[in-house]
């Protein structure tokens, strides 16, 4: 009963957030990028919740339960990545986006490379295809997690949560999305506190480690780096590199575009809050591994380890808050990426708006319509497919997407290429990634690294060819 009451109060509060921020949304700039006025502190708090998301609560502890410590490596790579973003990348993206006046990931790449509808269409469609899967996974996760909490069916829970998310996102735009992200961080801190209490109540990390070692020493000293790679050393180093290009994901990029003017102090604040949040997650993973000695029997689905531990050890209020934390994590993944994707798809219709002489208010209305359409596709897909958490799908799709777009995003700031360079880089690396995935060649990290290398190589080769053929190219 208590978790249900907490959930209902929270869902109503979210609608209030949308209402509060509704008044500040007058233009597409307000809606998509919050007027480009986000401060590093706000952005850091929001970014941290959005980047760790549902993986931190469910997927990472589940992977810890299934495979042991290799999951630690996936979070160790974050912090240097966040520092590079904060000090070097985000300020440059912000500055360039403000110069170009762009409000989307698509618009940034297109305008930075000198325009072209083919490039706009390719980026928007690739982004949309990748993220619709994310939306479906998020909605299904909401249905699975909230059905028992609200005491309703999977479909009803999915629809209730989905409607709340679309309503506040439509009303408040990025400001509402960011605010709810920050609220999500509060729940993450509560979860962290509970996890620390649980570990201490079991005798501390040392005692729990000894029990895990007694149960199965391979969980803490695995012979391979499964599920990520062949060796532990290999995956620690791979994740360090991976998270640098992972920051090129469209919905992360959308945050950088929305950043206001900043300084090095701002970059340090961003890094500090983002790091503090990310550093909580390894303790969740450790708890997931400890699930083997904390819970009786063997779990069929490793992703249920954290909910099971909280249900077993925490009191109903804490379990309720944990459930809301999971909801918030899924929601932050969903709302931020839905907004960023809408901004990308909206770019497809900009020429049409201009041709029809649409006013700023009309353009904004069309943007909101696109958001509802994307949401509706995901809802229908999620409702008509079986319940599943599908947490891995979120991460796997994103790693692939960030690799594919790495050429025209990361490399642009090293040495800018041309528009056909950008177009070819995305298209060719996407084809390579799809072929590798369909044929099941290499592990998924290796596939992403191949796509990354192809994206970068094609970006520069195609740009050199274009400059040779047409010297007036950028």
């Amino acid at each position, binding site marked *: 009963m208590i978790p249900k009451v907490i959930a209902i109060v929270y869902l109503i509060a979210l609608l209030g957030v949308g209402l509060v921020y509704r008044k500040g949304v007058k233009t597409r700039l307000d809606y998509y990028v919050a007027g480009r006025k986000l401060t590093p502190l706000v952005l850091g708090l929001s970014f941290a919740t959005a980047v760790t998301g549902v993986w931190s609560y469910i997927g990472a502890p589940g992977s810890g339960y299934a495979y042991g*410590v290799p999951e*630690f*490596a996936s979070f*160790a*790579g974050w*912090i*240097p990545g966040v*520092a*590079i973003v904060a*000090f*070097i990348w985000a*300020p*440059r993206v*912000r*500055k360039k986006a403000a110069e170009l006046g762009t409000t989307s990931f698509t618009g940034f790449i297109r305008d930075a490379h000198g325009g072209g509808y083919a490039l706009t269409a390719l980026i928007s469609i690739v982004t949309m295809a990748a993220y619709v899967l994310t939306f479906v996974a998020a909605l299904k996760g909401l249905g699975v997690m909230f059905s028992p909490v609200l005491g309703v069916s999977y479909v009803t829970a999915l629809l209730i949560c989905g409607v709340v998310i679309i309503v506040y996102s439509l009303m408040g735009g990025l400001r509402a999305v960011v605010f709810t992200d920050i609220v999500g961080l509060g729940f993450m801190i509560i979860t962290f506190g509970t996890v620390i209490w649980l570990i201490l109540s079991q005798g501390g*990390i040392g005692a729990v*480690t000894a029990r895990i070692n007694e149960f199965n020493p391979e969980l*803490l000293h695995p012979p391979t780096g499964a599920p990520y790679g062949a060796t*532990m*050393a290999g995956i*620690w*180093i791979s994740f*360090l590199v991976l998270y640098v290009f992972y920051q090129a994901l469209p919905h992360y990029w959308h945050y950088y575009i929305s950043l206001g*003017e*900043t*300084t*090095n*102090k*701002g*970059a*340090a*604040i961003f*890094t*500090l809050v983002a*790091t*503090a949040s990310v*550093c909580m997650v*390894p*303790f969740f993973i*450790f708890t997931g591994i400890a699930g083997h000695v904390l819970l009786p029997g063997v779990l069929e689905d490793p992703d249920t380890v954290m909910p099971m531990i909280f249900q077993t050890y925490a009191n109903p209020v804490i379990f309720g808050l944990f459930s809301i934390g999971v909801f918030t994590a899924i929601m932050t993944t969903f709302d931020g990426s839905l907004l960023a994707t809408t901004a990308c798809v909206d770019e497809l219709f900009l020429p049409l708006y201009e041709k029809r002489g649409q006013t700023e208010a009309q353009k904004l209305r069309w943007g909101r319509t696109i958001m509802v359409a994307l949401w509706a596709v995901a809802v229908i897909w999620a409702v008509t497919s079986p319940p599943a958490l599908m947490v891995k799908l979120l991460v796997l799709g994103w790693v692939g997407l960030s690799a594919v777009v790495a050429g025209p995003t990361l490399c642009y700031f090293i040495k800018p290429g041309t528009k056909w360079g950008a177009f070819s880089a995305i298209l060719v690396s996407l084809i390579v990634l799809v072929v590798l995935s369909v044929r099941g060649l290499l592990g998924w990290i290796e596939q992403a690294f191949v796509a990354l290398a192809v994206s970068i190589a094609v970006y520069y080769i195609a740009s050199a060819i274009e400059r040779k053929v047409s010297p007036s190219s950028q």
Partner: protein
Amino acid sequence: MKKSTIAAAIIVVWGIASVLIGIKDPILVLYTGFPGWIAATVIAYFLCAQEEKEEKSRTGGKGGTVK
């Protein structure tokens, strides 16, 4: 060398050190690597704040290179 550069370097160097610790003993990262990272970012914050303060006093109120 600028203090902000040192700050960014501290975080990245600690990141690499943590990865090396992780390769040797992953559980040790829970005790050292992750808490150390938070400490490194706190140090980085104070270095950047100090740099901004110095720039402010040098330029007469307008501090911190706007990025």
